[in-house]
């Protein structure tokens, strides 16, 4: 494979990792849109999504065996998304709803508490050790344009992410609940006065964001088949950076930010040796980007388009 082919392969590596960041970043950004706070427990919902996939696979192995093609993987994906949507709604109902109207700092600290609760509860229930994630889809190398070799799972992850993004766009732009979400992000008081049921919309937002995080968890475990209770910490932080990079509160921004962070990170690793620095700087890159964004364009890349804020 020539240099160009390898470059394209790294782009695909970056995009597939980026889709995971993007899916999580959407949850951060949507919750920020309606409630104006950062739900730091979101990265751990991603982890719960991965474990949900692991257990669904374990419980339903005999059933899944008879489903042809990608049907089994699809059932696990939707199952995990549904479970995490429920989890997201419960978290909001138990932890954040009683604090509605409280100073934002209190809610933020509560979010950190919820995050720690989820991590250590998972450690208690699932054990501290890393567990292998089953192959929902058998990984194969497939050829693409120009002799590029990529994993089939990477292509599937990218494709399904695009489908989910389009679906999200449809929900936010074309449905009544989506319209209510946008109304709430413009002005919560005015939206409530116009008859929008704020609590329902907020629950819905949490459910939607958590379902996307669960999809991210399943995709991550498909690409890198290992799950553990703290897998959401770093990924969650990077997704948060992605949301800020795209402009927090902005849905297309979060998706773009996620993909960008994924590709940039991968390129740092891929070409580090040629430029004579360590590929260990990969993690630093996301945070350097965060600092630069906060310094020069605090509203993020797409942050100015207030119209689409949710």
């Amino acid at each position, binding site marked *: 494979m020539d240099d160009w082919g390898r470059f394209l*392969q*790294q782009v695909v590596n970056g995009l597939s*990792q980026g889709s995971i960041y993007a899916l999580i970043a959407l949850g951060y950004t949507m919750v920020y849109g309606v409630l104006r706070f950062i739900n730091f427990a979101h990265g751990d919902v991603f982890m719960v999504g991965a474990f949900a996939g692991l257990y669904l696979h374990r419980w339903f192995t005999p059933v899944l065996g008879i489903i042809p093609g990608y049907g089994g993987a699809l059932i696990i994906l939707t199952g995990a998304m549904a479970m995490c949507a429920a989890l997201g709604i419960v978290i909001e109902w138990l932890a954040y709803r009683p604090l509605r109207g409280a100073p934002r700092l209190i809610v933020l600290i509560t979010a950190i508490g919820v995050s720690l609760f989820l991590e250590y509860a998972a450690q208690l229930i699932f054990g501290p050790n890393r567990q292998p994630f089953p192959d929902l889809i058998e*990984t194969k*190398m497939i050829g693409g344009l120009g002799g590029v070799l990529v994993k089939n799972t990477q292509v599937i992850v990218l494709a399904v992410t695009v489908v989910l993004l389009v679906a999200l766009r449809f929900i936010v732009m074309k449905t009544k609940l989506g319209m209510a979400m946008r109304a709430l992000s413009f002005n919560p008081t005015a939206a409530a006065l116009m008859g929008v049921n704020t609590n329902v919309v907020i629950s819905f937002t949490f459910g939607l964001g958590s379902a996307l995080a669960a999809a991210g968890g399943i995709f991550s475990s498909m690409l*890198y088949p290992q799950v553990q209770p703290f897998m959401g910490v770093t990924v969650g932080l990077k997704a948060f950076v992605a949301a800020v990079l795209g402009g927090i509160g902005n849905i297309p921004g979060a998706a773009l930010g996620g993909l960008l962070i994924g590709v940039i990170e991968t390129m740092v690793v891929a070409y580090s*040796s040629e430029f004579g620095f360590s590929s260990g700087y990969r993690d630093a890159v996301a945070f350097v980007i965060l600092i630069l964004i906060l310094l020069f364009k605090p509203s993020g890349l797409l942050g100015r388009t207030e119209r689409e804020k949710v």
Partner: protein
Amino acid sequence: MNRRLSIFLLLAAGLALPACKKVASNEIAIGEFASLTGATATFGQGSHRGTQMAIDEINAAGGLLGKKVRLVTEDDQSKQGEAATVVRKLISRDKVVAVLGEVASGRSLEAAPICQKAMIPMISPASTNPRVTEVGDYVFRICFIDPFQGTVLSKFALSRGWKKAAILTDVKQDYSVGLTQFFKEHFTKNGGTIVIEQSYSTDDTDFNAQLTTIKAAEPDVIVASGYYTESGLIAKLARQLGLNAPLLGGDGWDSPSLVKVAGAAMEGSFFSNHFSTEDKAPIIQDFIKRYRAKHNEDPDAMVALGYDSAMILADAIKRAGTTEPAKLRDAIAATKDFPGVTGKITLDEKRNANKPAVMLTIKDGKFRYVETIAP
């Protein structure tokens, strides 16, 4: 309401009281800090089981200096930072006479200065980074060190005719960074070339970028100097990419979790270790039998090292005839030809053990003995 509150407080106080009991005069408290949970949990669980087994056997044989031995174990959650906290607690609150731990070099390096300052002897069962015992004269270890382990890996690679090595280092772990450095030094001096060097951080999961680059460099062998926590996943992703060179690692791979995560991807890879369950020596087979009777599984090297660390400490307490720190330190330092399950242990003037290493390979999901490489 107020009365209910006061009753509750009284109850709480009653519960809390036994927790801060003083060290009884008829027992010797030995501290242990281990990663019972968190990323490298199997390390701490292994070394803890070994240590506990040793303490139980010592107590069954009548204790030390006519007193019972009490093991106080603290979990550092595999976290940098937490190790210092729990060791401070062991020394200041539990008044332990000595500290056993840790497996990971990074966390031992954190505890060592605290033990040194408090003048409490510390014995690390399995930290191989040379800097650990350089902290001071109260810090010991009963395993070989990474300059030796790096040489062993390099010798082994060269003996197999592998001249082109790729290296993947965990930059967050002192252990991995050290092992990489010592491997590189010996390997490049003796005719090998490092075709590419890549790194990652603990808890990373995405190794596609590194492995794609490594594949392009066409190495004969990939040295993964990090812990089992990432190495299993690295093997799996490498094989998916069609990168089929064998992987080579250090004792940080020794965990049942390695093969569980990697599955068939680890077959035919090699790592250096402190001990092999296939060793026919009676002392080892007897140890395996006792451990199996208790835990119904084979011990790994961390169990064996945890066991040896407690036994060496017990031996030193017996020889010193006291638990007074300075005398205990001198007794530990004088350990010579101690018959441990991980080999004959003699501590050198740098407070390290000089021991041979074994090379193991992964075959049919099991760790199989290949050869022993002496210092």
